[in-house]
């Protein structure tokens, strides 16, 4: 066990990435994720890696593409408007079958919005964002400890499937400090020699791109990608079920709002109300089966998001009309208040 440290979520993500063997980081400043590039600038270079403050977010994601081509573990991070700029690059990474880790410490939008926490990038994260048929595993940590753990895991998952992985946090996760202990990285080795670019002495040449104008080739690539996405969906799901067994109302929330809901669960359980929480830790793949299973006996599902309601669509698809769905959301940097959730919850229980 390592030593317990107090760190900001942003710093924990940066340190975890370095420990996971990330050697190339490219970024462009934007609040509330600036501590990530700042940490990399200070720590990555002296530990043998490469840090570049790119001229733009688009440059940064394409530098990630370049570094990934060589087999290096590469990462970029940004916040909502910057992540929008990276979407083309993310689509290219999937198309070229390149592993990378992208971190979105989301802020209020649309547009330049503000610097407050938000979960309004859910659709962008799980429904595409960039063009073409693609998916990537999306992790939504709720604590600083989990942010570090999932960052380490993200690099393994990216390498295993040769696909980008997204860490979706919000300004609270990025800015808050909590104690954490860094776990040992898995140490898994991935043989990338069959596809990486670089010194080609003694081997045939490799080509990495996402373009083919020959009929049927891109379709074939897509069918191969689908096999990979199916495997990711089957094997990479992470979900926490908290006090759901006897629950009359189950909250569904991820990241920061899951913690707010957890507080409400604690309060209401003390008052004898049976509430529980399903917390997707991956929002892609989404815990459809988990939610569907509980919809057979729990009548009410209460979705809480820092948005106008995005994940609620996936909850609806899981429940398929078998239970009632309620929603509480705050857009544009608003943070759901426990008191408001509680008030709505009581109305549901009395209905």
């Amino acid at each position, binding site marked *: 066990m390592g030593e*317990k440290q*107090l760190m900001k979520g942003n710093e924990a993500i940066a340190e975890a990435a370095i420990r996971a063997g990330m050697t190339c980081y490219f970024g462009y400043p934007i*609040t*509330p994720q600036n501590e990530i590039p700042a940490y990399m600038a200070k720590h990555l270079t002296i530990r043998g890696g490469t840090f570049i403050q790119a001229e733009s977010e688009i440059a940064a994601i394409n530098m990630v593409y370049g570094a990934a081509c060589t087999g290096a573990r590469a990462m970029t991070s940004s916040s909502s408007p910057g992540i929008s700029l990276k979407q083309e690059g993310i689509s290219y990474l999937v198309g070229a079958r390149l592993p990378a880790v992208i971190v979105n410490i989301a802020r209020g939008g649309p547009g330049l919005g503000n*610097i407050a926490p938000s979960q309004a990038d859910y659709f962008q994260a799980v429904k595409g964002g960039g063009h073409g048929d693609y998916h990537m595993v999306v992790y939504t940590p709720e604590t600083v400890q989990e942010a570090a753990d999932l960052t380490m895991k993200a690099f393994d998952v990216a390498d295993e499937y040769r696909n980008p992985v997204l860490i979706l946090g919000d*300004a*609270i996760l990025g*800015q*808050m*400090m*909590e*104690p954490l202990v860094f776990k040992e990285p898995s140490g898994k080795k991935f043989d990338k020699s069959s596809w990486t670019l670089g010194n080609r002495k003694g081997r045939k040449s490799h080509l990495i791109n996402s373009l083919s104008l020959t009929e049927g080739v891109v379709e074939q690539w897509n069918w191969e990608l689908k096999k990979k996405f199916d495997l990711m969906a089957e094997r990479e799901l992470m979900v926490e079920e908290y006090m759901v067994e006897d629950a009359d109302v189950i909250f569904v929330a991820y990241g*920061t709002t899951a*913690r*707010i809901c*957890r*507080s409400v*669960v*604690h309060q209401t359980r003390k008052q004898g109300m049976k509430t529980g929480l399903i917390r997707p830790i991956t929002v892609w793949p989404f815990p459809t089966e988990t939610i569907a299973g509980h919809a057979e006996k729990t009548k009410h599902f209460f979705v809480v998001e820092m948005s106008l309601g995005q994940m609620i669509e996936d909850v609806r698809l899981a429940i398929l009309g078998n239970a009632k769905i309620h929603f509480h959301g705050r857009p544009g940097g608003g*943070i759901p*208040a*426990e*008191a408001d959730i509680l008030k709505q919850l009581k109305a549901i229980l009395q209905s």
Partner: protein
Amino acid sequence: MEHKIIFAGFGGQGVISMGTLMAYAAMAENKNVTFYPAYGIAMRGGTANCSVIISDDPVASPVIAFPNILVVMNEPSLDCFTDRLQEGGTLLANSSLIRKKAARKDIRSFYIPVNDIAEELGDSRMANMAMVGSLLKIMNTVTLSTVFQTMKKTFSPKLLKVIDINQEAMKKGFHAVQL
């Protein structure tokens, strides 16, 4: 045990430092802790605040809607946050800069002249440390000696030479409160 503390004041008064120090010290005592600053718009003379939750159990929500302890270093912060203090909660106000009293009767209030305490030591910048001392006495959760050890670990090297005066201010703040 769970304390939900909001620290507030002018930028430059060391409000974030108070919260950070409490978070480090609570961690050193194996408490669960979450520190969350108001960020991004910090400047000297502007407003600054941060939240610290210290708990025996894992911290659920990191957001404090209603603190049970409120530490205010200036009058605008008193005006801004006092309404949010839980019933029966505790207010610590810097009476060197706050001339009025809180209007609420359902809270426990302590008025500590921390700027004056700091001036007596010859450095008004120690006001925040005096306030931390008062807070420690009132909270009775984290000990003065833990905080002293924490300071040694967390202060940057250039600040180590002022550690004594910081600790002196903290002791004075601690003893300034009568329970």
